[in-house]
């Protein structure tokens, strides 16, 4: 079979002049009733971006409040609601769906050489469930909010809070189904719809990480669903699953909640690691060092992630022996995570790296994720955890993982695949500026919080002792820089939709099935089903081919 792929395609046809998924059909209903995974990815992109802005608003209001030691801008009740809704919006409606439902939806079938996900209608249903959940969540926010913290700990959530706990948990419940359906689709598609010749070890690492994510979504989310149902029943009927007056145990709620919500951290970070692998390979033009180790470390993280939940309960009165075991298992998760970081580093070693925007974000990701991961080990250490529990140290730690990790990698991914999604390039100079602002703003916001937490500033209060003010002002200043860094891409990416340079098939000269089809891809992704005869990240083969061409 004579095969060839055009690199650095400079034909660069105007996207509008090719037949693609964007101009296949027009009109409102061709979008909201679409079964095309690429259009559903766009629907998700718009929805999660809206939720990100809403969640960001709450964050900015909190940082504004924390400029001064006095609780002067927001009352303590309002502040409670704001940190709760910041957490709920960002976790359930942004971080969990963002990479799987946007980038995964768009790319997984293309990377597998398939025409669509296995269940296109279920894919659309998952978006509708997400929207229903988001609307319920927004109604709750507008009608008075909720103040339990995003964890809904009982008995406060069941007996004492007079805010909209039911509506919020119901929204979380519905959003969970959306997440489950996405995971189900990814598992079946990866198993059953790979192109001829595309064996498991030829899969891009993004697919491996999506697969591992899907396993966690499928096995963890239903436990959250049943836990939230039990909470809703308890609150509504005044009966007690977790009510001590009837012999119920509030700590059981915490166990069941974190059985989902700790693995949920891996729903957020595993896809980010997948993006990192793709971007590192493309911008070093090398095969990822230790491909199989990176692939299996995703599964190891997914597996071990289920065995560490009680490290959130070290101060909740669990036995010291189970605490020791959970501390040990939490340390164990660091091993597969470190395997990934070391392998990316080894790939970068002696590589000639192209410092374009996606790579800048991924360099930020690797550094910030490492800091977030290592401080996670501090928190998994029993003695130290008791000192910093419920302080800003914890806040800084998980923001390094979620924001420094997941959001940075998402921004890398959206820039890397933007030419494929839209057919146009983003403006490189502005994008680099934004990447720099995000990195500087992020560190300025959250690094002082490590110090604040270590010095003993508790989280979740709108007022604080005056000696913490300098670090808090730094943090709030950083948040402003971060906000500009996040606002810039929204502006220039929208601008590029009309004015960006046409991207062509493969603007990065990258290897991968998504770079063999036109930009934007046609509705059926490929004009004919691809037959895969090469390994993943076959950059050595590609460089050899380039050398041969130059010799001709």
């Amino acid at each position, binding site marked *: 079979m004579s*095969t*060839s792929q055009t690199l650095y395609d400079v034909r660069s046809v105007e996207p509008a002049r*090719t037949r693609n998924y964007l101009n296949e059909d027009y009109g409102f209903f061709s979008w909201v009733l679409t079964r095309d995974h690429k259009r559903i990815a766009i629907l998700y992109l718009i929805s999660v971006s809206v939720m990100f802005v809403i969640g960001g608003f709450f964050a900015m209001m909190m940082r504004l409040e924390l400029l001064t030691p006095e609780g002067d801008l927001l009352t303590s009740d309002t502040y409670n609601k704001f940190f709760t809704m910041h957490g709920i919006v960002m976790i359930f409606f942004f971080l969990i769906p963002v990479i799987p439902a946007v980038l995964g939806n768009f790319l997984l079938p293309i990377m597998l050489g398939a025409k669509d996900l296995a269940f296109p209608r279920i894919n659309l249903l998952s978006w509708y469930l997400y929207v229903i959940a988001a609307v319920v969540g927004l109604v709750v926010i507008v009608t008075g909010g909720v103040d339990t913290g995003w964890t809904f700990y009982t008995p406060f959530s069941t007996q004492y809070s007079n805010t909209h706990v039911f509506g919020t948990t119901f929204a979380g419940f519905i959003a969970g189904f959306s997440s489950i359906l996405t995971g189900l689709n990814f598992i079946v598609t990866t198993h059953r719809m790979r192109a001829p010749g595309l064996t498991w070890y030829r899969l891009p690492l993004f697919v491996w990480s999506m697969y591992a994510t899907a396993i966690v979504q499928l096995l963890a989310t*239903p*436990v959250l669903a049943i836990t939230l149902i039990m909470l809703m029943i308890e609150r509504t009927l005044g009966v007690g699953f977790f009510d001590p007056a*009837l*012999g119920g145990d509030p700590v059981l709620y915490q166990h*069941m909640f974190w059985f989902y919500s700790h693995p949920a951290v891996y729903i957020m970070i595993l896809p980010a690691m997948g993006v990192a692998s793709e971007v590192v390979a493309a911008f070093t033009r090398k095969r990822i060092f230790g491909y199989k180790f990176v692939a299996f470390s995703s599964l190891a993280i997914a597996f071990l992630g289920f065995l560490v939940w009680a490290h959130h309960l070290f101060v909740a009165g669990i036995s010291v022996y189970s605490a020791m075991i959970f501390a040990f298992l939490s340390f164990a998760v660091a091993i597969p995570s470190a395997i990934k970081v070391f392998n990316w580093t080894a790939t970068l070693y002696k590589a000639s790296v192209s410092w374009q925007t996606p790579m800048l974000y991924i360099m930020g990701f690797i550094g910030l994720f490492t800091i977030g991961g290592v401080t996670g080990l501090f928190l998994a250490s029993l003695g130290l955890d008791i000192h910093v529990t419920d302080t800003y140290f914890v806040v800084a730690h998980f923001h390094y993982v979620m924001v420094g990790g997941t959001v940075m990698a998402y921004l890398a991914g959206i820039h890397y695949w933007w030419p494929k999604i839209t057919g146009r390039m983003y403006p490189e100079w502005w994008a680099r500026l934004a990447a720099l602002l995000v990195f500087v703003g992020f560190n300025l916001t959250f690094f002082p919080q490590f110090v604040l937490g270590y010095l003993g500033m508790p989280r979740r209060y709108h007022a604080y002792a005056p000696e913490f003010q300098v670090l808090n002002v730094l943090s709030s200043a950083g948040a402003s820089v971060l906000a500009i860094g996040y606002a810039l891409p929204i502006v220039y990416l929208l601008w590029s939709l009309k004015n960006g340079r046409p991207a062509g098939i493969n603007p990065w000269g990258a290897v991968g099935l998504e770079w063999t089809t036109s930009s934007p891809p046609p509705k059926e992704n490929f004009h004919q089903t691809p037959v895969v005869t090469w390994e993943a990240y076959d950059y050595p083969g590609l460089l050899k081919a380039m050398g041969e061409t130059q010799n001709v």
Partner: protein
Amino acid sequence: MSDITYSGQTPVPPPEVVEEHHPHHPFLQHHFEDLGQQHEASTLGMWTFLTTEILFFGGIMLAYWVYRLAYPDAWSVASTLQNTRLGGINTIVLITSSLTMALAVREAQLGRRLRIVAMLFLTLIFGSLFLGIKMYEYHAHWVEGLFPGTAWHWNENPDLAPKIQLFMTFYWGMTALHALHMVIGAGLLLWFMWRAWKDQFGPEYYGPVEVMGLYWHFVDIVWIFLYPFLYLIHGHKH
């Protein structure tokens, strides 16, 4: 630079080239290669979904066992408040419905239209009978004051009453979730009866009936756990 080619990957035909369409089965969706792939995908999809269902019921069963081990006396007394005979009859009814469901799959594979409809109908009858008996039990519990919360007025054993109320919260919660799955299954049965009536199933295309069967059997199996948990395990006699 535009002419650099790489011999490892597939070509990109010009966009004008449109794939020719072969005539295919009316129920083959466009994104699958053939009916076999479609069948395998939908079967794996249902198994995957059932995995999440196991974790869903598993969560509340875990909580049930935590309290069962913490309060064996209350749980023992509470089990005796259940109508073991009706629960047993319901178990037999449900297992019979699984038999007729399995026969419906068999008839779909053979493409015998009226027999598929008949077997699905029988499954629906047995499923409805189960729900009817369940409603009768619910009514009896309600009258006895065994509905937790403000409606609770069962007070024969004041010492254990709060914990028996906890047991009954699990009883209502678990059986209601199970019944909800049955109702969804009944709706699916009606839809599939209509599809079978339209002669949509046959030796080439019976996957949906098989997948529906997997769901039905799963709901059956959940009850196989609930019956002993809630009715049969007494711990020790009082």
